[in-house]
């Protein structure tokens, strides 16, 4: 007798077919990459394998007669507050297969989301709100390390700079795209992100998968990543963008490296990553040339030397308990910007335990880092870029008021191109053509569509940010940076408010 596979007994989702609508066109079979829809040739009818359904809603969206509804499976275990279906099913999975639980996206646990406990201010009477449709409203932000004071001279009665500023990166909108590798996401999404970044005047980030040949033309809007696997890393790559990001950690999986399964390593990816087709791309947990802060300094300046001090070097760390001290060390080691990725930051593949339980929320991390850098008198010399769970423009405003210079979005950009958060990116079968490089699936999301959606999203957010700034009576984003006066807490403890440096609503 074969060993029973307990996990297969209890599906998560239920595919409901409305037979009065279904015309048996088999479109659902074509759309579903998980083979949850089956054609029963003998009976000439459609069947469902509910266990295989991941809840991506692709079939539902594309059914021409709207005959499909994807629901939570109605079958229930007996109630138990501790042993919820989530834990029961995870144990079945591991008992069946003996492996590590894998998942995707960011932390899904309902930890307190601090953004949702912060409200914003607006002007009434004593100062006028500003209308961004009638008055200029500025979102331009410069990223990089800055000297403390300008050197100015007077020549023929005119003032001018005696010494030019070091290279800095101009962002027309304080929203960048987070590092997502070619491999984890499709080439088309990369192309869309790159073009959107160019047209929006911001930056996208290659992630650690190298830079596809077709994307070199977007160099002025590119951050190239240097992660522990060093995939696709060569001097032309380093020089291709405007900044190099040393990825030490990722919010979704602090303390471990990445894993791109061999199945996802196609011909194109193998060329870009400089690894053989079909081989697993495993990046180690540490950078094996960085075992200490002085080693990080070594790498920062090795990269600066290699790029003749023309490129900025960012260092990305995940928000962990001691993030403030680490960020301070990173800045002192010579990084031009410190990128902090919080607990809620996403991923294409991570062990579930890491995704859900390791790291701290980004809101607390931003405030702690900002406070630490201020206490050390170096906050104005560097930039803080925050990511991990930014869902809307108000989150962006709050992150900046807590002390970030700019934010990065990853998950939000993917949702913009159709992601339904089914959390199965690691399978490489993304039916929406986002987290896959299967040549057939790729076609489902053309680069132009990806571009348009991403561009629209950020344009909409930028407009909303302008409206919120105007309501607060300020007409330039630099006056929001670290401005805790614009925030009030609702339902936070004294300790939380101390860390966030905000007052409670009503105070």
């Amino acid at each position, binding site marked *: 007798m074969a060993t029973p596979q307990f996990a297969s007994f209890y599906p998560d989702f239920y595919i409901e077919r409305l037979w009065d609508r279904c015309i048996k066109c088999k479109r659902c079979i074509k759309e579903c990459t998980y083979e949850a829809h089956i054609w029963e040739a003998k009976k000439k009818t459609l069947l469902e394998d509910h266990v295989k359904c991941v809840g991506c809603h692709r079939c539902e969206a594309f059914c021409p007669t709207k005959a499909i509804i994807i629901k939570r499976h109605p079958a229930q275990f007996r109630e138990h507050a501790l042993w919820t279906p989530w834990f029961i099913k995870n144990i079945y999975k591991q008992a069946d297969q003996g492996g590590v639980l894998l998942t995707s996206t960011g932390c899904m646990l309902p930890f307190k989301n601090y953004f949702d406990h912060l409200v914003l201010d607006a002007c009434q009477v004593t100062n006028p709100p500003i209308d961004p449709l009638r008055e200029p409203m500025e979102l331009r932000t410069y990223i990089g390390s800055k000297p403390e004071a300008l050197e100015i001279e007077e020549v023929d009665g005119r003032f001018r700079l005696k010494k030019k500023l070091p290279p800095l990166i101009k962002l027309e909108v304080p929203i960048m795209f987070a590092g997502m590798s070619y491999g984890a996401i499709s080439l088309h999404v990369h192309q869309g992100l790159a073009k959107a970044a160019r047209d929006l005047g911001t930056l996208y980030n290659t992630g650690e998968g190298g830079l596809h040949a077709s994307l070199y033309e977007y160099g002025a809007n590119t951050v190239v990543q240097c992660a522990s696997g060093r995939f696709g890393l060569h001097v032309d790559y380093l020089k291709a963008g405007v900044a190099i990001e040393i990825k030490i950690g990722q919010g979704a999986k602090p303390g471990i490296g990445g894993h791109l399964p061999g199945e996802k390593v196609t011909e194109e990816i193998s060329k870009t990553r400089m690894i053989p087709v079909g081989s697993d791309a495993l990046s180690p947990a540490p950078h094996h040339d960085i075992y200490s802060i002085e080693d990080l300094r070594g790498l920062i300046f090795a990269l600066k030397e290699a790029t003749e001090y023309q490129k900025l070097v960012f260092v990305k760390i995940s928000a962990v308990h001691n993030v403030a001290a680490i960020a301070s060390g990173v800045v002192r080691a010579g990084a031009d910007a410190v990128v902090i990725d919080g607990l809620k930051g996403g991923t294409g593949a991570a062990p579930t335990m890491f995704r859900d339980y390791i790291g701290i929320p980004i809101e607390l991390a931003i405030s702690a880092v900002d406070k630490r850098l201020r206490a050390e008198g*170096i906050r104005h010399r560097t930039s803080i870029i925050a990511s991990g769970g930014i869902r809307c423009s108000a989150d962006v405003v709050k992150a900046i008021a807590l002390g970030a210079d700019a934010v990065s979005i990853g998950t939000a950009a993917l949702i913009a191109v159709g992601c339904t958060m089914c959390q199965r990116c690691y399978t490489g079968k993304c039916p929406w053509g986002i987290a896959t490089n299967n040549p057939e699936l790729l076609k489902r999301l053309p680069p132009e569509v990806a571009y348009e959606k991403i561009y629209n999203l950020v344009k909409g957010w930028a407009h909303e940010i302008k409206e919120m700034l105007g309501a607060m009576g300020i007409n330039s984003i630099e006056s929001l940076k670290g401005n805790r006066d614009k925030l009030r807490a609702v339902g936070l403890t004294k300790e939380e408010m101390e860390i966030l440096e905000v007052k409670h609503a009503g105070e």
Partner: protein
Amino acid sequence: MWNLTTLGREVSGCGISGIIHRKGEPISGQMIIKSICCQYERGNGLGAGFAAYGIYPDFKDYYALHVMAQSKEALEKVEDFLQRRTFLTFQEPIPTRKVKTIHNPPLFKRYFVKPRVEGEESCGLFAEEEQMVQIVMEINEKIEGAYVISSGKNMGAFKGVGFPDEIAEFFRVDEYRAYIWTAHNRFPTNTPGWWGGAHPFTLLDWSIVHNGEISSYGTNRRYLELFGYKCTLLTDTEVVAYALDLLIRKLGLPLELACKAMAPPFWMEIDEMEEEERELYSALRILYGGAVLNGPFAILFAYNGGLVGLNDRVKLRPLVAASKGDLYFMGSEEAAIRSICPDPERVWAPKAGEPVIIEMEEGAIPNQKSYLKVRPKEVREDALRIRSIPLSLFTS
């Protein structure tokens, strides 16, 4: 009962007025009183004040500390502190009159001092002023119930809770003669009557009167704290004073550029500039973004040698300037100017973000300062350590 402390940050609307004589001839206090009282409706009786320059010619080389205190004990603590930290040459109560609407006012006393500068090499003006700033900050922060309301040479501030005519009467402002005057009539909206919150706000010989609300207060405060300023008075105007001190006195920016750092041109204007100018203005905004004063304001600030008017960059509060001969006037309303100068030669409304800078003729007054030129900046060594770039193969 009057208060020396406040619960929260001040928000207020106001009227302002200022006069300067470019040759340094003294102007009677009656003139500024008339001008500010013309703008009576711009206040609500909860604060008024005056700053006067050139009023202590006998002690012109000493820092005149105007101290406001809650009690004799607080004053004694101040005096103890001054004994330790300064050379005190003269002290006296600030002369006042009884005003029937002002009940139970604080005690006011003035001290003429020079700081005891520690160390051998630090004997220049900068070190001396730095020491004075420290002394003022320490008194304000550490001695409960005592505030230094002005601390410059040959100048002083007179301020309190009341309408401007009442405060003028109380401090006998009409008896002083000064070559620069500024005045303020206050309309606070949230914290009634606290004497320290009245304007002008001062630091060394900077004095500021301000109509507006600084919406960027939180950002400005954090930026200024990086440089050791402590915002204890919880007023918007305090950050304006410190920002000026930082940009002009410490970082050596010429006055015009300091004003541009605080009320910068829009990026779309900067983008249209010629390359050299564009680089300069971009750099100003990039480096000194924390000093940008955002929100509606019109301010007048004065120092030993000049009077400056500045509006926010979209001009959300009124400011008018006028001149007649060597006299220059600025005020919230043209009427305030015409009430004391019915026939000005020129009257104009300064554009948004365009500073009006009136400096006195060279040599007009003792200890004269001029901030029109670039000056050397103070270097903070500790903060520079973060970017000591190693020898490069590529840069020479």
